[in-house]
């Protein structure tokens, strides 16, 4: 039987990694791509960060955001995760025939507002319209560039044993907010997506210390997948404590109802920072001083033991492995 791409290959979990590594990285190999950080960084007179991403969210509008806000924040955050100051974005729209003009205008207005907040400009773009059924309302592709200050060197491969792991706030808000609006599942919740641009939060952290080892935003695949990526890239172990990971009661409840673990649910306005222990206190304060980092916490540390593995101390005091997401989390039967 012919091997085909499954939906699960797009989930951001292990199947997606396998696809990227065996199909794209292998064929298109170069040292910049091979680093597999959120954005590529290179020197062109100054040090630059460059990234791209596509957005295919259903529904297009959800509590706390929409596809336009998501597109800008996602790209701004990918740039910020290299320590860059995000500057310019491109936006490409793939529009399904029949999309309402009003919805498109709402998306563009939302893009304008969040780009203003993030301090980035949309400097180029493209529009395609495809037949009904060839897209789901609206897809957006973005690219972005930013500039990295002297002395900043952030990569997923820089974590060292003894480093502290900072999480900028509660996990799972975005994934559950979107699920709560999805056709066939709508449940009432006050929860809003955490979708937010984190460029200024990162700038605040760098103002305290340039010695930040890793930054990553735990989007699809959730906190668990991000920590696993960092552990694998840096060839270190990571140990976190369940009780220190902030989770909203609503997220816990929805997760229980659907059989989904908040550790694997997407976030769009959170970051994980891995920093040397002596700078951890100051950096944590800087995160908390930003409106998107008020609930930040140190959730664990980097270890020399169990390289490539993430281990969690549960609230009962026992330990267990936290693995990477495999495919999309599937709601269970009972």
């Amino acid at each position, binding site marked *: *039987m012919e091997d085909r*791409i499954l939906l699960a290959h797009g989930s951001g979990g292990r199947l997606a990694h396998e696809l990227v590594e065996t199909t794209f990285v292998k064929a298109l190999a170069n040292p910049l791509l091979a680093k597999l950080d959120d954005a590529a960084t290179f020197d062109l007179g100054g040090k630059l960060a460059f990234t791209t991403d596509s957005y295919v969210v259903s529904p297009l509008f959800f509590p706390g955001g929409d596809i336009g806000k998501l597109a800008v924040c996602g790209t701004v955050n990918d740039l910020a995760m290299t320590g860059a100051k995000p500057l310019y974005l491109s936006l490409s729209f793939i529009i399904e025939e029949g999309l309402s003009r009003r919805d498109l205008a709402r998306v563009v207005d939302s893009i304008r507002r969040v780009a203003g907040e993030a301090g980035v400009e949309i400097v180029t773009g493209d529009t395609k319209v495809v037949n009904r059924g060839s897209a789901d309302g609206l897809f957006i592709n973005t690219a972005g560039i930013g500039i990295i200050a002297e002395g900043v060197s952030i990569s997923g491969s820089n974590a060292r044993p003894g480093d502290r792991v900072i999480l900028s706030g509660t996990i799972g808000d975005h994934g559950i907010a979107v699920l709560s609006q999805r056709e066939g599942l709508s449940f009432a919740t006050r929860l809003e997506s955490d979708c937010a641009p984190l460029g200024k939060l990162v700038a605040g952290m760098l103002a305290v210390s340039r010695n930040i080892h890793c930054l990553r935003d735990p989007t699809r695949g959730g906190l668990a997948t991000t920590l696993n990526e960092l552990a694998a890239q840096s060839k270190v172990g990571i140990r976190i404590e369940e009780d220190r990971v902030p989770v909203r009661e609503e997220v816990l409840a929805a997760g229980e109802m659907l059989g989904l673990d908040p550790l694997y649910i997407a976030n769009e306005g959170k970051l994980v920072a891995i920093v040397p222990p002596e700078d951890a206190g100051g950096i944590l304060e800087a995160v908390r001083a930003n409106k998107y980092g008020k609930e930040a916490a140190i959730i664990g540390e980097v270890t020399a033991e169990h390289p490539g593995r993430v281990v969690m101390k549960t609230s009962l005091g026992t330990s267990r492995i936290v693995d990477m997401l495999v495919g999309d989390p599937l709601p269970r039967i009972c």
Partner: protein
Amino acid sequence: MKFITEFRRPELARGLLSQIQSQSRTKARFMEFCGGHTVTIFRYGIRQALPRTLEMVSGPGCPVCVTASADLDKAIALSRVPGVIITTFGDMLRVPGSRSSLEKAKAEGADVRMVYSTIDALRIASDNPDRSVVFLGIGFETTAPTVAASVLRARERGIKNYYVLSLHKLCPPAIRAILDSGEVRLDGLICPGHVSTVIGAHPWESVAHDYHIPGVISGFEPLDILQAVSMLVAQVERGEARVEIAYRRGVRPEGNPEALRVMERVFETGPARWRGLGEIAESGLKIRGEYQEFDAERAFNIVPEPAREPEGCLCGEILRGVKMPLDCSLFGKACTPEHPVGPCMVSSEGSCAAYYLYGGSLGG
């Protein structure tokens, strides 16, 4: 009251654990029937926290895992019938049948849609009057009533293109089959929580009586499990064999009479094939003749190729509690969550997936 955090409070857990430590003298092996309990036990590392006198084994309570290959093949074959839309709960998608899975059939063009309830499946049927919409009726007593209700509603609304492939299974006959086989000695049962919300405590009481084995119906939070273990230990130490309900916020002794009535109206019991346990009499739910126009078995004459079980896969033995996931030579090598060989590695409630994801060596 907060229904989640209140049942995860570490200081209460420590109290229960020290109570279990001081109570437990006799060596005992308990089976948690339900996959949801298995997940809690692994997520919180409960096995490593229990005294050495106590051993926990996982039972067959994962609906996806116990679905026979032949039945999966039938569902996959149905998905390839022109004009058919398959509607299913999410965790069925990735389960391998003999040769394919619904997820792969979907990538090849089959119309397979994940739904969260049978009401969605009914809506798809009324939105697509020229298509045949088949709902895969997988699950235990927990989900069967909602499937029965969908059949009643389809009749009420005159929806003619809605069908159910009923592969529903009943839990008490499976427990009896495991106890009858004598393959694994059990000293106590953690009875399923949400199954018991529907059927109540009485069916377990006859099991406890017939096999002289204590049972406690438990909820799904770590404190629920620890309380259930503590109650089982107390019974073992006193030589008792009663059924107790630890999950009082979810289960009444008589169950849910309305759900039972709806189930009874639409379904009748019959033999069912269980992966690992084989055919068990009176352990399945078939659609009654009175509602046969909704029965996918009758509406579509599907004869899939003979089923084959994956070579070397120990899911069957693992579901019976005879073998542990780590005993399987495929575990973690040929069989991983991204490339599952057997169903126990697919479902989030399967023992192999729980071992793999939460670390059998650490968490077990």
